[in-house]
């Protein structure tokens, strides 16, 4: 069940567009903002509000890589894997990150704190390698900085 707040926000998004369906991406973003991901149940609820079939809405949801249709951890780490970061050797950073967290791409740590995903170019190529954790961008990241960066998000620090 969507909360009143979610419904209210989605209805507001609908008001800004010519027809309900056009608010689908906004509506999915709203649900994800509140719940970190979009479950089958949420998808069905949103589809109803937009007069869409769940299948049609899912075709939109699954197109966009930053709408999560599987549960993610409290913090999502996006590792830039595009060309400038590759030239600067991002793979070493990625592998160290996997080691420290004990997970690989698409997985979530057992404590539910972190999910790590690959992401294409983050648009900060002069400061490669780069990664994002939630809304925070980290540039020129070195392996030596990893523990310190992760600590900021551990144990409810953020």
């Amino acid at each position: 069940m969507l909360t009143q707040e979610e419904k209210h926000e989605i209805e507001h998004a609908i008001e800004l567009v010519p027809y309900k369906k056009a608010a689908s991406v906004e509506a999915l973003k709203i649900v994800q903002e509140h719940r970190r991901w979009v479950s089958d149940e949420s998808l069905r609820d949103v589809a109803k509000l937009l007069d869409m079939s769940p299948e049609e809405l899912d075709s939109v949801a699954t197109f966009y890589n930053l709408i999560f249709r599987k549960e993610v951890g409290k913090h999502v780490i996006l590792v830039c894997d595009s060309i400038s970061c590759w030239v600067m050797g991002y793979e070493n950073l990625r592998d160290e990150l996997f080691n420290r967290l004990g997970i690989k791409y698409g997985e979530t740590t057992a404590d539910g704190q972190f999910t790590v995903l690959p992401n294409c170019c983050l648009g900060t190529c002069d400061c490669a390698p780069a990664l994002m954790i939630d809304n925070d961008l980290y540039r020129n990241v070195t392996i030596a900085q990893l523990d310190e960066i992760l600590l900021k998000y551990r144990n409810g620090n953020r």
Partner: protein
Amino acid sequence: MERPLTQHIREDRRPLSLKEYETVGGYQSLRKMLTMTPKEVQKLVQESNLRGRGGAGFSTGLKWSFVPLDAPKPKYLITNADEMEPGTFKDRILLESTPHQLIEGMIIAAYAIQADISYVYLRWAYKTAAQAILTAIDEAEGAGYLGKNILGSGYDLQMHLHTGVGRYMCGEETALLNSLEGKRATPRAKPPFPQISGLFGKPTIVNNVETLCCLPHIINNGAEWFKKLSLTGDAGTKIYGVSGKVKKPGAWELPMGVTLRELIEEHAGGMQDGLKFRGALPGGASTDFLVEEHLDVKMDYTSVAAAGSRLGTGTIVVMDDKTCPVGFVKNLEHFFAQESCGFCTPCREGIPWVEKILISIENGEGRPEDMDLLEFHTKYLGPGNTFCAFAPGAMEPLQSALKYFRNDFEKHIREKNCSYNRVKEMING
């Protein structure tokens, strides 16, 4: 040297507030423009020879001229701020630091086509920019630069920020329109062109951030001034960037037409110690390599095209002599395979095939006939064979790598390994 677009950007890149922007002459071009007719604005911009900075390099004034001015409202002006071309980070700077310059440019473009609704389509990753733009829109509305009856002129314009949720395809203008309509971001057939039937079926213009940021300066200083900023026939300044193993990667606003050599050796400080220049993508992942013989090519649309590539976004990715060209292209094709929207078959099936071949060559499992297969794909996925320009773009770095670095591909196949100094188990990643 004049740097109109970036002259007021602070060292720490904090955005200029409305007051600060007005103090340095902000929104004066808007006042001037409102005394002109839309046709006069279009003509001035056409005369200035401004070409689209998103990568295609199409004349901005000409693009606008296809919008029927007498069409009923709504009409739309959209800023393409979905900067996702790998290696590109120029619009980020303008978005984060001078949001009012963009808004002023957007009002000018919107007025020129008599649009009444405008959107900034911003990529998800640009969080700082999103905040800067939201604040700036609020400030501009408060000051009467946006909304109803702008500065008493009778002209109305709303502005909204839309932040995306990923996918490179959203930067293609018709896919961007589908995305804004809440659909999958697949491209549309043209014609009808967006100028006739764009967002929600209404006349629409989509312009790049850097393009729009040129407009206040063209209105203030005129077409001749804008042309004279350039060293060549392609007008204006350009925000160039360099990434890769150079001493000082970065971005700089320079006269259009500086050479590749000057960018790499002077502005980027040259190659890192112990490394040599091997090649570069001049304008993002979907441009053909330039190599040593091209170092004196002038970086404008015309000259880079004559050298067999495209200026694209003008943000250069440098490849050094210790980096494997096969691995480099494999990284690019992985990106394209992943980001293909899947709508048309050659692109959806062909690019992953190319990626698989490159993985096997890089892993020492390549066969001599793989060279022909790669060559075949550069033609089969080339212009005219796919629904949009995505797959042809994906083939540009591959076809030029096969031309300039052919020995590397053949050596991998012959010796059944990659001789570059990279840790092997990382290659599949």
